């Protein structure tokens, strides 16, 4: 699922000073920012819409960042709790998703720094929280192919885990959330060129780490 739509809403005093509104073409409205403004006015239903819309991408991002489902859920809850807490002072000075992922990234980086990560035990059959085992989708693979596939997946996850935290965040936002360099830069509070540098180094490291899988 990607976030390709919407641009800066309005021209307010900057919450993110590096955001520039280049003014090309008519002003587009960030629908999520509109919803958040309604939340600011007391519209709880709009918060529900935002939650439904963004909880999965945020959770998936956090899952891949911290590589622990339980921690990722806890962090995802915290993201939306903070969004809710900030409702009365919300100002749409950046895309809503930029703000959202900024919070998520900050929480993930703090979590990683605090060492709350626990190695996720990977297996062909995983226990879901309700105790039923998760059946992997049948891709027409033999057992041997399936085991190779799982081993490869493990290597991918380990290679991602080896990346410095900010490189990891940049890759995840770029690859799985379809964010452009400029939005990633705003999330990570760095320049576009710094993001490119982060990403290119990350992909280079990943290519090297996974070269033997080719």
């Amino acid at each position, binding site marked *: 699922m990607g976030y390709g739509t919407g641009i800066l809403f309005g021209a307010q005093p900057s919450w993110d000073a590096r955001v520039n509104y280049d003014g090309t073409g008519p002003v587009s409205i960030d629908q999520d920012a509109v919803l958040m403004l309604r939340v600011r006015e007391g519209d709880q239903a709009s918060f529900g819409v935002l939650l439904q819309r963004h909880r999965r991408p945020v959770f998936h991002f956090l899952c891949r960042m911290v590589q622990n489902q339980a921690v990722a859920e806890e962090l995802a809850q915290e993201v939306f*709790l903070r969004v809710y807490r900030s409702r009365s002072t919300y100002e749409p000075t950046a895309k809503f998703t930029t703000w959202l992922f900024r919070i998520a990234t900050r929480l993930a980086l703090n979590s990683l720094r605090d060492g709350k990560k626990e190695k996720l035990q990977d297996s062909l059959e995983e226990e879901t929280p309700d105790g039923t085992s998760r059946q992997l989708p049948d891709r027409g693979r033999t057992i041997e192919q399936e085991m190779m596939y799982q081993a490869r997946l493990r290597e991918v996850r380990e290679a991602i885990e080896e990346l410095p935290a900010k490189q990891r965040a940049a890759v995840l936002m770029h690859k799985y959330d379809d964010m452009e360099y400029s939005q990633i830069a705003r999330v990570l509070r760095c320049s576009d060129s710094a993001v*490119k540098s982060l990403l290119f180094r990350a*992909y280079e490291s990943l290519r090297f780490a996974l070269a033997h899988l080719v």
Partner: protein
Amino acid sequence: MECPSKREDSSEVLISYVEGSLSPSAQIAFERHLEACGRCRELTAAQQELWAALDTWAPAELSADFNERLYERIASEESSRPKWAERLTKAGLAWQQAVPVVAACAALMVVFLWRGPGTEPGVYFGEEAVASQGRGPQIEQVESALEDFEMLGQLDFRSVAESALRKKI
């Protein structure tokens, strides 16, 4: 086409090609280049393989009760807010509902009283007039900010900020 692998920004073209975001003409140019450049073919193949590998990574699903637990936390926080904070919020909402005209008049006052940036030299902080209309920060906020300023002052980021400011000019 200049060989991307010889440029520092080679990865950008490569990544854009693999993710399919190159313009049609750039894509054609790059594919033509690939026919002639072994190094770029290697890098492209490696990036495509990486992309495919990353595509296989499907994370877990959210718990079914995620929303429910979140709302419970929100409700718990809301119910533990001090009564005075609740009264302030309610008063604020009542005010907002009861006097929209006052808000519009206040905004009109801002229009007439507004002095744009750069028209007034900075006094202590800031260069713009603030139409606060009698409302200022809570004194506790000011206290807290002053404490922060005092602590931050120890770091002496002045030289750092100066060079950052110079870069922006």
